[in-house]
């Protein structure tokens, strides 16, 4: 099962020694056990522009989460959850 949030959920990243340690979304805290992949999306520079650093994280409770950091705003968002 996979759930894609049309409006990505604001998230807070906790870092441990420069690597993602945990993700806080609303009241929930997801402990990160592995960064599965990273990728970048940069586009629409002619308009408002998108500059995102994507991560796929594996959490301690077995979820895979696609999250992205908006490089301009310095904020993180949860976009997709797969179990």
């Amino acid at each position, binding site marked *: 099962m996979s759930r894609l949030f049309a409006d990505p959920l604001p998230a807070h990243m906790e870092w441990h020694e420069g690597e993602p340690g945990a993700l806080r979304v609303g009241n929930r805290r997801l402990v990160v056990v592995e960064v599965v992949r990273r990728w*970048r999306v940069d586009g629409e*520079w002619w308009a408002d522009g998108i500059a995102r650093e994507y991560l796929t994280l594996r959490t301690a409770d077995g979820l895979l989460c696609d999250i992205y950091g908006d490089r301009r705003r310095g904020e993180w968002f949860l976009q997709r959850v797969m179990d």
Partner: protein
Amino acid sequence: MPGFVHLHTHSCYSFLDGASSLGDLLDAAVEHGQDALALTDTSGLYGAVRFWNVARERGVKPIFGAELRLIDSDPVTLLALDRSGWTSLCRIVSAAQLAGEKTKPRATFALVADQPAGLIALSESDDAETLARLREVFGDRLYAELVDRWGPADIDRCDGRAELAAELGIATVVTNDVRYARPEARQLHDVLRCIDLGCTVDEAGTQLAANGERWLKSEAALRERLGHHPGAFANARAIADRCDLDLGFGYQRLPGFPVPDGYTPFSFLYALCQDGARAKYGGMTPAVSKQLAHELDVIHRCGLAEFFLINWDIVRFCNERRIPAQGRGSAADSIVAYVLDITKVDPIAHDLLFERFLTEDSHTMPDIDLDIATNDREEVIQYVYRKYGEKYAAMVCNVVTYRSRSSSREVAKALGFRPEIVDRLAKSIDAPRFDSRLPVMEPSGGLSRRSLDGRHDESVNEVLSESRPTAFTSESHPPALSDLLNEQERARWPLFRKIVEEIADFPRHLSIHNGGMLITALPLVDTVPIERATMPDRNVVQFDKRDIEDLGLIKMDLLGLRTLSLIKDAVAMIDELHGVRLDLGTLPLEDPAVYDLICEVDTIGVFQVESRAQAQALPRVRPRNFADIIVEVAIIRPGPLQGNMVNPYIRRRQGREPVAYAHPLLEPILKETLGVILFQEQILRVSMAIAGFTATEADKLRRAMSRARSSEDMEKLRSPFVRGALAHGVDDVTANTIFGQIAAFAEFGFCKSHAAAFALTAYHTAHLKLYYPSEFYVGLFNNQPMGFYSPAVIAGDAKRHGIAILPVDVNRSQAKAVVEQRAATAGSGASSSLGRSRASETTNRPSGPPLRSEDAPDPHNRASGSSSLDEAVVDRSVTIAAHRACRTHDVRLGLTEVKGLGVAEAEVIVQERERGPFRSFDDFAARVGMKEEGLRNLALVGAFDALGEARRALLWRARDAHRASPAFARPVLAFPTTAAPTLPGLSEQERAALDYRITGIPTGPQVMRFYRERLLARDVRSSADIQRGSHGAVVTVAGAMVVKQHPETAKGHVFLSLEDEYGLVNIIIRPATYAKYKPVVDLGGAVVVEGTLQHVDGVVSVLARRLDELALFVKLASRNWQ
């Protein structure tokens, strides 16, 4: 320790799929400490030679390759290991290009598999079968490419591919499939992709890359994510080390030239020269014999006999076919070229210097540019193909690069600007090159122009709002561009500016070079890549002229020169009409009447001396002999003008400044140019006389000076010169002064031999205009586009020489213009026209008889030419009037001048007429299959006037009439044409408007004639009045803007040539005035100019201070020159 090397790199030579220049890519490699770089553009080796040069300059090892997109398999990137690999690359690229259409090559797996020798292959395929097939072809020269584009699955894919490769026994290599040197160029790459895809950035969607990671990264940046494949990094290095290819092909320079038995190429050349010298000089003089021996000796030592024989053979072919052909450029310095009849100017008589053309240790091939009559050039090219074979000869390409107008248009389109804005933008740009002339968006939203020093001039908007001119007519002033932009366009304006500047000089596409032909000793495709040209069945080399020179290959320049076609046509007409067989080659060059004509500046249409700048210089220089014409041709060029050589020469010529020499040794060298250095040959002679240089050293100095880019470069050349001068007893100060003089000139100079070759053609055309003006004008009309002026201006000039421009007539016109004998009958349109003209000539201020309102058919169809308004058809010249061979010849326009009529249609009309003249419009329509547009246009320009049918009525009947023609597909609908109701005739103004619209050539009055009365009422002068005005007077003058010039050398000044019914007026617009009135000038058409009259040395101009639009009833196009 040398490390990683990028082996998959696209440059701007991937045409719209690479966003960095070769220099930028190499600079980025150097910054990352990478000591080699591969260039792998798509389907071509376009940038290879330049890459070879630029890489060596930067100390980077160049590796040559290409990416092939296969129609039946995954793409493959090929790298040449050595010369055999280069041959394979050329063969594969050429075969793929020739198998497809232009810009759409068709490469297959089989094609690549057929030529694997000396090639390394890189593949990003994940298909085991594909990789296995490639391995069969390339063995251990195949590498699986690991590319991380920072996509979601890229690392997984690379890992998977590495695993698959390991299973198949294939090595891996890291690349980044580079599209640009630095991350910033990603925006440009996206825009280029949109231009290629024909969409806007908003529409492109997933067709654009998801991010901007395809730049030339450092090894460390790549290792961050692919570091777990260390072998793939090591392999990149190993491949770079294996590739070892130098592109110098000098060893295979010349194809053989067949010579008769018993001769070597040199002995054959020797014999030809002896014969030629006797023919040209009527025997051997000591001077001829000495110079010939010297040149032949150098040619022999350089092994260039075959090169001269190839050129001799081409000219021999031209002579056989009576095709005018002549060498230009420095070749005219050579007596060997002259006696072989390659060049036409005697180098002994004109004191030309062979060493400017060829010195013994010159490492490049000498250059012989042959001008050939344009209409016959193809025949000559076909001869060369036949002689050397299609496998050994091909045309050289011309890389068409983005200029500011083309890039503005395409970038604006890709950024989603609306079509009307795109058009307006492109039109408002003056300069073809990119500089600060691009409009800048001001914070206020206004557009301004940035001056060259980076300061911002006043906003154009502000200026316009302050001084929006009170329109002369009711036309409103054009709105500023900034007022027209919508919100999105305004927001994207900075991006537009940035990208237009970045795209500067990027290659856009290939075209065939105008004449460059490569002839190779080895089969072409083994040496160079070729592809299809736009012209059917014509192939073109992917290298341009400079590339071919750098490779040391031989190229012939077979250039089309329309003036030579004009000459050929006029000479044939003169033979036919006057029974005079003109041999221009033997024409003495001392005819005072020719020089009178040139001094009168009666030079419209005369080769090289017709331009506005020439018209300004001729009355000052007043050429009186052939040497003067050579000077005139040489000095009115951007270089000498910029180098400030022209004014000192003119001052000395006029006796306003004493002729002085910095050292007595200079006198014999510079005497002919009054002590001013005007020719490149003089640099060589000065260096030889003052610094004791050999000819080779002197030519090296000239080349080095012309290439010096900085004052430091120039200083390095100074000391050997000064040292040599001191040794020759020249003092230090004088030596430095002389060095300064030649250095100032070297950058811009022109070689005398080239000027002499052009001066000869100038003389020949002046001779034709002087004695046979009708034939000359016909030649001009029939070889358009050529020269400085439009056909409309040429028509005006003809009328001012008493030659009527007769309208197209279905019973009289040929396909092209012809000379027509004027009917001798008293009282005919012609004679009455001349009578009226002479009468009005004395007044020069026409009282303006009433406009005629009816068509007035006359049996000779001279209606338009003999209009009641047209007092201009009279010979107002002095010299031509006194010398012309014939006063009863006019020009009848050809059928092909009519819009909508091609050569084929025109020939059908002429052929059909051979069965008997057309009796009526219906008769014509029934006998000639013609589309409605052609019929309508013929009717509208008066082609049926002589048949007594009114034009407006014919227009009514044209729709029915074309159905009666044999070409109409449904004869069942072919009813007789219906009679038109009674319609008003055309006014003279309407007829003029139709001429301008349909042929572009007014047969009646020039457009300004229709405004003359109103202009006189406002005290606006004519061009004739201006000639009589006094210096410093404030005048107002009006005319059609026929030429607009914005020369880079003129420090922002703009020059307009305004035409009225009496001739041309020169307008000078200062930069500040231009900034104010640019929108008026941009509109084209006509203007009313208020300014100060300048009368200097017989040159008349108006220094503009105000320009107003004059709205015309016709649309006119100006010729714009930079």
